Protein backbone atom coordinates (compact mmCIF):
# COMPACT_ATOMS: atom_id res chain seq x y z
CA UNK A 1 0.00 0.00 0.00
CA UNK A 2 1.20 3.47 -0.87
CA UNK A 3 2.36 5.81 1.87
CA UNK A 4 2.25 8.92 -0.29
CA UNK A 5 -0.35 11.36 1.11
CA UNK A 6 -1.08 12.62 -2.43
CA UNK A 7 -2.15 9.15 -3.54
CA UNK A 8 -4.28 8.72 -0.43
CA UNK A 9 -6.05 12.00 -1.08
CA UNK A 10 -6.83 11.01 -4.65
CA UNK A 11 -7.92 7.53 -3.57
CA UNK A 12 -10.31 8.85 -0.94
CA UNK A 13 -11.81 11.21 -3.48
CA UNK A 14 -12.27 8.37 -6.00
CA UNK A 15 -13.86 6.06 -3.45
CA UNK A 16 -16.17 8.83 -2.31
CA UNK A 17 -17.47 9.29 -5.82
CA UNK A 18 -17.77 5.54 -6.46
CA UNK A 19 -19.79 5.09 -3.27
CA UNK A 20 -22.73 6.57 -5.19
CA UNK A 21 -22.99 3.40 -7.23
CA UNK A 22 -24.20 1.60 -4.11
CA UNK A 23 -26.25 4.31 -2.57
CA UNK A 24 -26.52 8.07 -2.53
CA UNK A 25 -24.73 9.09 0.71
CA UNK A 26 -23.16 12.06 2.55
CA UNK A 27 -19.61 11.00 1.66
CA UNK A 28 -20.50 11.16 -2.02
CA UNK A 29 -22.25 14.51 -1.58
CA UNK A 30 -19.16 16.05 0.01
CA UNK A 31 -16.89 14.81 -2.78
CA UNK A 32 -19.41 15.83 -5.43
CA UNK A 33 -19.72 19.41 -4.19
CA UNK A 34 -15.99 19.69 -3.74
CA UNK A 35 -15.50 18.51 -7.31
CA UNK A 36 -18.17 20.84 -8.65
CA UNK A 37 -16.65 23.83 -6.89
CA UNK A 38 -13.15 23.04 -8.11
CA UNK A 39 -14.19 22.39 -11.69
CA UNK A 40 -16.19 25.60 -12.04
CA UNK A 41 -13.42 27.58 -10.35
CA UNK A 42 -10.89 26.08 -12.76
CA UNK A 43 -13.06 27.15 -15.71
CA UNK A 44 -13.44 30.64 -14.28
CA UNK A 45 -9.69 30.96 -13.68
CA UNK A 46 -8.93 29.88 -17.23
CA UNK A 47 -11.51 32.36 -18.52
CA UNK A 48 -9.98 35.08 -16.40
CA UNK A 49 -6.46 34.33 -17.69
CA UNK A 50 -7.72 34.66 -21.26
CA UNK A 51 -9.56 37.89 -20.50
CA UNK A 52 -6.48 39.32 -18.82
CA UNK A 53 -4.01 38.35 -21.55
CA UNK A 54 -6.17 39.09 -24.59
CA UNK A 55 -8.31 41.95 -23.30
CA UNK A 56 -6.91 43.80 -20.32
CA UNK A 57 -3.20 43.67 -21.07
CA UNK A 58 -3.64 45.13 -24.59
CA UNK A 59 -5.91 47.82 -23.12
CA UNK A 60 -3.24 48.76 -20.61
CA UNK A 61 -0.79 49.03 -23.51
CA UNK A 62 -3.08 51.49 -25.25
CA UNK A 63 -4.68 49.13 -27.80
CA UNK A 64 -8.16 50.60 -27.52
CA UNK A 65 -9.70 48.20 -30.03
CA UNK A 66 -9.62 45.55 -27.31
CA UNK A 67 -12.37 47.53 -25.60
CA UNK A 68 -14.98 46.10 -27.99
CA UNK A 69 -14.68 42.42 -26.97
CA UNK A 70 -14.25 43.36 -23.29
CA UNK A 71 -17.47 45.36 -23.31
CA UNK A 72 -19.30 42.59 -25.16
CA UNK A 73 -17.96 40.10 -22.61
CA UNK A 74 -19.10 42.18 -19.65
CA UNK A 75 -22.54 42.59 -21.23
CA UNK A 76 -23.00 38.80 -21.09
CA UNK A 77 -23.54 39.22 -17.36
CA UNK A 78 -26.32 41.77 -17.91
CA UNK A 79 -28.74 38.84 -17.93
CA UNK A 80 -28.49 38.71 -14.16
CA UNK A 81 -29.72 42.33 -13.83
CA UNK A 82 -33.50 42.70 -14.22
CA UNK A 83 -34.44 45.25 -16.86
CA UNK A 84 -30.98 45.20 -18.43
CA UNK A 85 -31.10 41.60 -19.57
CA UNK A 86 -31.67 42.54 -23.22
CA UNK A 87 -28.18 44.05 -23.37
CA UNK A 88 -26.70 40.56 -23.21
CA UNK A 89 -28.35 39.86 -26.57
CA UNK A 90 -25.69 41.97 -28.24
CA UNK A 91 -22.97 39.71 -26.92
CA UNK A 92 -24.96 36.61 -27.84
CA UNK A 93 -25.58 38.00 -31.32
CA UNK A 94 -21.86 38.56 -31.73
CA UNK A 95 -21.06 35.04 -30.52
CA UNK A 96 -23.63 33.34 -32.73
CA UNK A 97 -22.93 35.58 -35.73
CA UNK A 98 -19.24 34.78 -35.76
CA UNK A 99 -19.85 31.12 -34.92
CA UNK A 100 -22.34 30.83 -37.80
CA UNK A 101 -19.89 32.32 -40.30
CA UNK A 102 -17.01 30.21 -39.02
CA UNK A 103 -19.25 27.16 -39.31
CA UNK A 104 -20.00 27.97 -42.94
CA UNK A 105 -16.34 28.52 -43.83
CA UNK A 106 -15.50 25.30 -42.06
CA UNK A 107 -18.10 22.86 -43.26
CA UNK A 108 -18.96 24.04 -46.75
CA UNK A 109 -15.76 22.63 -48.15
CA UNK A 110 -14.74 19.96 -45.63
CA UNK A 111 -18.26 18.73 -44.88
CA UNK A 112 -19.90 18.94 -48.30
CA UNK A 113 -17.63 19.54 -51.31
CA UNK A 114 -14.76 17.29 -50.15
CA UNK A 115 -17.23 14.61 -49.05
CA UNK A 116 -18.81 14.55 -52.50
CA UNK A 117 -15.37 14.44 -54.09
CA UNK A 118 -14.43 11.57 -51.79
CA UNK A 119 -17.51 9.65 -52.92
CA UNK A 120 -16.59 9.95 -56.60
CA UNK A 121 -14.64 6.80 -57.40
CA UNK A 122 -14.08 4.78 -60.56
CA UNK A 123 -16.48 1.83 -60.52
CA UNK A 124 -13.87 -0.79 -61.25
CA UNK A 125 -14.57 -3.25 -58.47
CA UNK A 126 -17.53 -4.77 -56.65
CA UNK A 127 -16.55 -2.89 -53.52
CA UNK A 128 -16.53 0.41 -55.42
CA UNK A 129 -20.02 -0.21 -56.81
CA UNK A 130 -21.23 -1.17 -53.36
CA UNK A 131 -19.70 2.00 -51.89
CA UNK A 132 -21.49 4.22 -54.39
CA UNK A 133 -24.80 2.47 -53.77
CA UNK A 134 -24.29 2.78 -50.03
CA UNK A 135 -23.48 6.48 -50.32
CA UNK A 136 -26.50 7.26 -52.44
CA UNK A 137 -29.04 5.16 -50.56
CA UNK A 138 -27.88 6.46 -47.19
CA UNK A 139 -28.44 10.05 -48.31
CA UNK A 140 -31.87 9.17 -49.65
CA UNK A 141 -33.04 8.31 -46.12
CA UNK A 142 -33.06 12.04 -45.54
CA UNK A 143 -35.05 13.02 -48.64
CA UNK A 144 -38.07 14.57 -47.01
CA UNK A 145 -39.49 16.53 -49.89
CA UNK A 146 -38.47 14.54 -52.97
CA UNK A 147 -39.77 11.40 -51.32
CA UNK A 148 -43.00 13.09 -50.28
CA UNK A 149 -46.36 11.53 -50.88
CA UNK A 150 -47.90 13.55 -48.08
CA UNK A 151 -51.36 15.06 -47.88
CA UNK A 152 -50.49 17.73 -50.42
CA UNK A 153 -49.29 15.37 -53.10
CA UNK A 154 -45.79 14.82 -54.36
CA UNK A 155 -43.36 17.33 -55.75
CA UNK A 156 -42.34 15.31 -58.79
CA UNK A 157 -45.58 13.44 -59.28
CA UNK A 158 -44.06 10.27 -60.69
CA UNK A 159 -45.07 7.01 -59.01
CA UNK A 160 -42.18 4.87 -60.25
CA UNK A 161 -39.68 7.45 -59.14
CA UNK A 162 -41.23 7.58 -55.71
CA UNK A 163 -41.15 3.82 -55.35
CA UNK A 164 -37.48 3.97 -56.25
CA UNK A 165 -36.84 6.58 -53.53
CA UNK A 166 -38.76 4.44 -51.01
CA UNK A 167 -36.70 1.37 -51.85
CA UNK A 168 -33.51 3.38 -51.76
CA UNK A 169 -34.35 4.82 -48.35
CA UNK A 170 -35.03 1.32 -47.04
CA UNK A 171 -31.61 0.12 -48.18
CA UNK A 172 -30.16 3.32 -46.79
CA UNK A 173 -31.64 2.62 -43.38
CA UNK A 174 -29.97 -0.76 -43.44
CA UNK A 175 -26.62 0.89 -44.19
CA UNK A 176 -27.18 3.38 -41.38
CA UNK A 177 -27.88 0.58 -38.93
CA UNK A 178 -24.64 -1.16 -39.91
CA UNK A 179 -22.84 2.11 -39.22
CA UNK A 180 -24.55 2.54 -35.87
CA UNK A 181 -23.44 -0.98 -35.05
CA UNK A 182 -19.87 0.12 -35.69
CA UNK A 183 -20.32 3.12 -33.42
CA UNK A 184 -21.85 0.85 -30.78
CA UNK A 185 -18.89 -1.51 -30.97
CA UNK A 186 -16.32 1.25 -30.66
CA UNK A 187 -18.11 3.03 -27.81
CA UNK A 188 -17.41 0.22 -25.40
CA UNK A 189 -13.69 0.80 -25.80
CA UNK A 190 -14.18 4.45 -24.94
CA UNK A 191 -16.17 3.59 -21.81
CA UNK A 192 -13.75 0.93 -20.63
CA UNK A 193 -10.96 3.37 -21.39
CA UNK A 194 -12.34 5.59 -18.65
CA UNK A 195 -12.69 2.85 -16.08
CA UNK A 196 -9.46 0.87 -16.50
CA UNK A 197 -7.15 3.78 -15.56
CA UNK A 198 -9.21 4.26 -12.38
CA UNK A 199 -8.74 0.60 -11.51
CA UNK A 200 -5.06 0.93 -12.28
CA UNK A 201 -4.85 3.87 -9.94
CA UNK A 202 -6.78 2.27 -7.08
CA UNK A 203 -5.32 -1.22 -7.32
CA UNK A 204 -1.92 -0.20 -8.66
CA UNK A 205 -0.70 3.17 -7.44
CA UNK A 206 -2.67 2.94 -4.20
CA UNK A 207 -2.62 -0.68 -2.99
CA UNK A 208 0.13 -2.00 -5.29
CA UNK A 209 -1.78 -5.04 -6.51
CA UNK A 210 -1.24 -4.33 -10.22
CA UNK A 211 2.39 -4.31 -11.33
CA UNK A 212 3.56 -0.88 -12.60
CA UNK A 213 4.28 -0.30 -16.31
CA UNK A 214 7.91 -0.79 -17.20
Amino acid sequence: MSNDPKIWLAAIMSLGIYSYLFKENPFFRVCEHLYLGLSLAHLAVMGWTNVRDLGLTPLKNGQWSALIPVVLGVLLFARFIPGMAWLSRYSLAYLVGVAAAVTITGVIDAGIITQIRGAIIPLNSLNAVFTLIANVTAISVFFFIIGSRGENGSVLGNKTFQKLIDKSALVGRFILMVSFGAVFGTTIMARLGLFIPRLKFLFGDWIHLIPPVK
Partner: protein
Amino acid sequence: MKRQGPVLVAFVTGVIVLAGYFFNSQTVVDMSTQIVRWQNIVAAFALALGGVNMFRLHGKNIIGRKKNWVYSCIFMVAFVSYFVLGVAKSTTSAEYQYIWQNLYQPAASTMYSFTLFYMTSACWRAFRIRNWQAAVLMVTGAVVLLGQVGIGAAISEAIPAVSAWIIDTPNAAAIRAITIGGSLGMVVMSIRVILGLERTYMAGRQD
Protein backbone atom coordinates in the same frame (compact mmCIF):
# COMPACT_ATOMS: atom_id res chain seq x y z
CA MET B 1 -32.56 48.53 -30.10
CA LYS B 2 -33.65 45.43 -28.25
CA ARG B 3 -34.20 43.20 -31.26
CA GLN B 4 -32.99 44.93 -34.43
CA GLY B 5 -29.61 45.90 -32.98
CA PRO B 6 -28.47 42.37 -32.14
CA VAL B 7 -29.70 41.10 -35.52
CA LEU B 8 -27.57 43.75 -37.22
CA VAL B 9 -24.53 42.76 -35.14
CA ALA B 10 -24.89 39.13 -36.16
CA PHE B 11 -25.36 40.11 -39.80
CA VAL B 12 -22.37 42.46 -40.07
CA THR B 13 -19.91 40.21 -38.24
CA GLY B 14 -21.12 37.15 -40.15
CA VAL B 15 -20.80 38.78 -43.57
CA ILE B 16 -17.31 40.14 -42.84
CA VAL B 17 -16.03 36.74 -41.72
CA LEU B 18 -17.53 35.10 -44.82
CA ALA B 19 -16.02 37.74 -47.11
CA GLY B 20 -12.64 37.20 -45.49
CA TYR B 21 -12.87 33.53 -46.39
CA PHE B 22 -13.85 33.91 -50.02
CA PHE B 23 -12.00 37.04 -51.13
CA ASN B 24 -8.37 38.10 -51.21
CA SER B 25 -8.69 41.73 -50.11
CA GLN B 26 -6.17 42.22 -47.29
CA THR B 27 -8.40 44.74 -45.44
CA VAL B 28 -11.29 42.29 -45.32
CA VAL B 29 -9.07 39.39 -44.30
CA ASP B 30 -7.59 41.48 -41.47
CA MET B 31 -11.02 42.55 -40.25
CA SER B 32 -12.23 38.98 -40.41
CA THR B 33 -9.32 37.56 -38.37
CA GLN B 34 -9.72 40.38 -35.86
CA ILE B 35 -13.42 39.61 -35.42
CA VAL B 36 -12.77 35.91 -34.96
CA ARG B 37 -10.04 36.65 -32.42
CA TRP B 38 -12.31 38.96 -30.45
CA GLN B 39 -14.84 36.19 -30.35
CA ASN B 40 -12.39 34.14 -28.32
CA ILE B 41 -12.23 36.90 -25.71
CA VAL B 42 -16.02 37.11 -25.44
CA ALA B 43 -16.13 33.31 -25.20
CA ALA B 44 -13.65 33.50 -22.30
CA PHE B 45 -16.11 35.68 -20.39
CA ALA B 46 -18.78 33.09 -21.09
CA LEU B 47 -16.71 30.47 -19.24
CA ALA B 48 -17.44 32.24 -15.98
CA LEU B 49 -21.22 32.21 -16.55
CA GLY B 50 -21.65 28.66 -15.27
CA GLY B 51 -19.69 29.55 -12.16
CA VAL B 52 -21.77 32.67 -11.53
CA ASN B 53 -25.01 30.68 -11.98
CA MET B 54 -23.97 28.06 -9.44
CA PHE B 55 -22.60 30.72 -7.11
CA ARG B 56 -26.03 32.37 -7.01
CA LEU B 57 -27.85 29.06 -6.56
CA HIS B 58 -25.70 27.86 -3.67
CA GLY B 59 -25.56 31.34 -2.17
CA LYS B 60 -29.37 31.34 -1.97
CA ASN B 61 -29.28 27.87 -0.41
CA ILE B 62 -26.93 29.02 2.31
CA ILE B 63 -28.70 32.29 3.08
CA GLY B 64 -32.09 30.61 3.20
CA ARG B 65 -30.70 27.65 5.21
CA LYS B 66 -32.41 25.42 2.67
CA LYS B 67 -32.20 21.63 2.73
CA ASN B 68 -28.60 20.45 2.32
CA TRP B 69 -27.17 23.95 2.74
CA VAL B 70 -24.09 22.42 4.36
CA TYR B 71 -23.12 20.94 1.01
CA SER B 72 -23.59 24.34 -0.58
CA CYS B 73 -21.03 25.65 1.90
CA ILE B 74 -18.56 23.04 0.71
CA PHE B 75 -19.18 24.14 -2.87
CA MET B 76 -18.64 27.78 -1.94
CA VAL B 77 -15.42 27.17 -0.06
CA ALA B 78 -14.00 25.06 -2.89
CA PHE B 79 -15.10 27.46 -5.61
CA VAL B 80 -13.98 30.69 -3.98
CA SER B 81 -10.67 29.49 -2.58
CA TYR B 82 -9.61 27.71 -5.75
CA PHE B 83 -10.55 30.71 -7.87
CA VAL B 84 -8.62 33.08 -5.63
CA LEU B 85 -5.63 30.74 -5.64
CA GLY B 86 -5.70 30.54 -9.42
CA VAL B 87 -5.94 34.28 -9.93
CA ALA B 88 -3.43 35.20 -7.23
CA LYS B 89 -0.77 32.56 -7.84
CA SER B 90 -1.57 31.45 -11.42
CA THR B 91 -2.43 27.99 -12.66
CA THR B 92 1.22 27.10 -13.04
CA SER B 93 1.89 27.39 -9.30
CA ALA B 94 2.70 24.22 -7.36
CA GLU B 95 -0.29 24.63 -4.99
CA TYR B 96 -2.77 24.99 -7.83
CA GLN B 97 -1.37 21.96 -9.62
CA TYR B 98 -1.37 19.91 -6.41
CA ILE B 99 -5.12 20.38 -5.97
CA TRP B 100 -5.78 19.78 -9.64
CA GLN B 101 -3.76 16.54 -9.69
CA ASN B 102 -4.94 15.05 -6.43
CA LEU B 103 -8.50 16.24 -5.91
CA TYR B 104 -9.99 17.50 -9.14
CA GLN B 105 -8.49 15.03 -11.60
CA PRO B 106 -9.37 11.84 -9.65
CA ALA B 107 -12.88 13.08 -8.91
CA ALA B 108 -13.53 14.04 -12.51
CA SER B 109 -12.22 10.86 -14.07
CA THR B 110 -14.10 8.74 -11.54
CA MET B 111 -17.31 10.63 -12.24
CA TYR B 112 -16.98 10.04 -15.97
CA SER B 113 -16.19 6.36 -15.57
CA PHE B 114 -19.76 5.89 -14.29
CA THR B 115 -20.85 5.74 -17.91
CA LEU B 116 -19.34 2.27 -18.19
CA PHE B 117 -21.47 1.00 -15.31
CA TYR B 118 -24.65 2.38 -16.80
CA MET B 119 -23.72 0.87 -20.12
CA THR B 120 -23.06 -2.53 -18.59
CA SER B 121 -26.43 -2.79 -16.91
CA ALA B 122 -28.11 -1.38 -20.01
CA CYS B 123 -26.48 -4.19 -22.01
CA TRP B 124 -28.20 -6.71 -19.78
CA ARG B 125 -31.56 -5.01 -19.56
CA ALA B 126 -32.26 -2.50 -22.30
CA PHE B 127 -30.52 -3.39 -25.55
CA ARG B 128 -33.07 -5.67 -27.14
CA ILE B 129 -33.61 -6.94 -30.62
CA ARG B 130 -37.06 -5.44 -31.08
CA ASN B 131 -37.09 -4.97 -34.84
CA TRP B 132 -34.95 -5.61 -37.88
CA GLN B 133 -33.04 -2.36 -37.42
CA ALA B 134 -31.94 -3.26 -33.93
CA ALA B 135 -31.04 -6.74 -35.17
CA VAL B 136 -28.72 -5.37 -37.87
CA LEU B 137 -27.20 -2.94 -35.39
CA MET B 138 -26.49 -5.54 -32.75
CA VAL B 139 -24.99 -8.11 -35.09
CA THR B 140 -22.59 -5.59 -36.64
CA GLY B 141 -22.04 -4.15 -33.18
CA ALA B 142 -20.96 -7.54 -31.90
CA VAL B 143 -18.50 -8.05 -34.78
CA VAL B 144 -16.94 -4.59 -34.42
CA LEU B 145 -16.86 -4.94 -30.66
CA LEU B 146 -14.83 -8.13 -30.91
CA GLY B 147 -12.75 -6.77 -33.78
CA GLN B 148 -11.62 -3.87 -31.62
CA VAL B 149 -9.72 -6.02 -29.17
CA GLY B 150 -7.25 -8.88 -29.13
CA ILE B 151 -9.78 -11.48 -28.10
CA GLY B 152 -11.52 -11.09 -31.48
CA ALA B 153 -8.35 -11.91 -33.36
CA ALA B 154 -7.72 -14.79 -30.95
CA ILE B 155 -11.13 -16.31 -31.79
CA SER B 156 -10.75 -15.91 -35.55
CA GLU B 157 -8.54 -13.87 -37.86
CA ALA B 158 -11.66 -13.03 -39.86
CA ILE B 159 -13.23 -10.98 -37.08
CA PRO B 160 -10.85 -7.99 -37.18
CA ALA B 161 -10.84 -8.14 -40.97
CA VAL B 162 -14.64 -8.03 -41.23
CA SER B 163 -14.76 -5.37 -38.55
CA ALA B 164 -12.28 -3.22 -40.45
CA TRP B 165 -14.31 -3.66 -43.66
CA ILE B 166 -17.50 -2.62 -41.87
CA ILE B 167 -15.84 0.53 -40.53
CA ASP B 168 -14.15 1.29 -43.86
CA THR B 169 -16.98 0.68 -46.28
CA PRO B 170 -20.65 0.66 -45.24
CA ASN B 171 -19.97 2.73 -42.14
CA ALA B 172 -17.93 5.28 -44.07
CA ALA B 173 -20.76 5.62 -46.59
CA ALA B 174 -23.35 6.16 -43.87
CA ILE B 175 -21.23 8.68 -42.01
CA ARG B 176 -20.54 10.48 -45.27
CA ALA B 177 -24.28 10.72 -45.88
CA ILE B 178 -24.92 11.99 -42.36
CA THR B 179 -22.02 14.43 -42.70
CA ILE B 180 -23.27 15.85 -45.99
CA GLY B 181 -26.83 16.13 -44.70
CA GLY B 182 -25.74 17.50 -41.34
CA SER B 183 -23.32 19.99 -42.89
CA LEU B 184 -26.01 21.24 -45.26
CA GLY B 185 -28.27 21.64 -42.25
CA MET B 186 -25.57 23.58 -40.41
CA VAL B 187 -24.91 25.83 -43.39
CA VAL B 188 -28.59 26.53 -43.88
CA MET B 189 -29.06 27.22 -40.17
CA SER B 190 -26.03 29.54 -40.22
CA ILE B 191 -27.41 31.42 -43.22
CA ARG B 192 -30.65 31.90 -41.31
CA VAL B 193 -28.75 33.19 -38.25
CA ILE B 194 -26.71 35.66 -40.31
CA LEU B 195 -29.77 36.90 -42.19
CA GLY B 196 -31.61 37.38 -38.90
CA LEU B 197 -34.28 34.79 -39.73
CA GLU B 198 -33.34 32.56 -36.82
CA ARG B 199 -33.59 34.44 -33.55
CA THR B 200 -34.15 31.75 -30.99
CA TYR B 201 -30.92 32.83 -29.28
CA MET B 202 -32.91 35.88 -28.20
CA ALA B 203 -35.66 33.76 -26.64
CA GLY B 204 -36.89 34.40 -23.14
CA ARG B 205 -38.97 37.11 -21.60
CA GLN B 206 -36.52 39.97 -21.75
CA ASP B 207 -38.50 42.81 -23.34
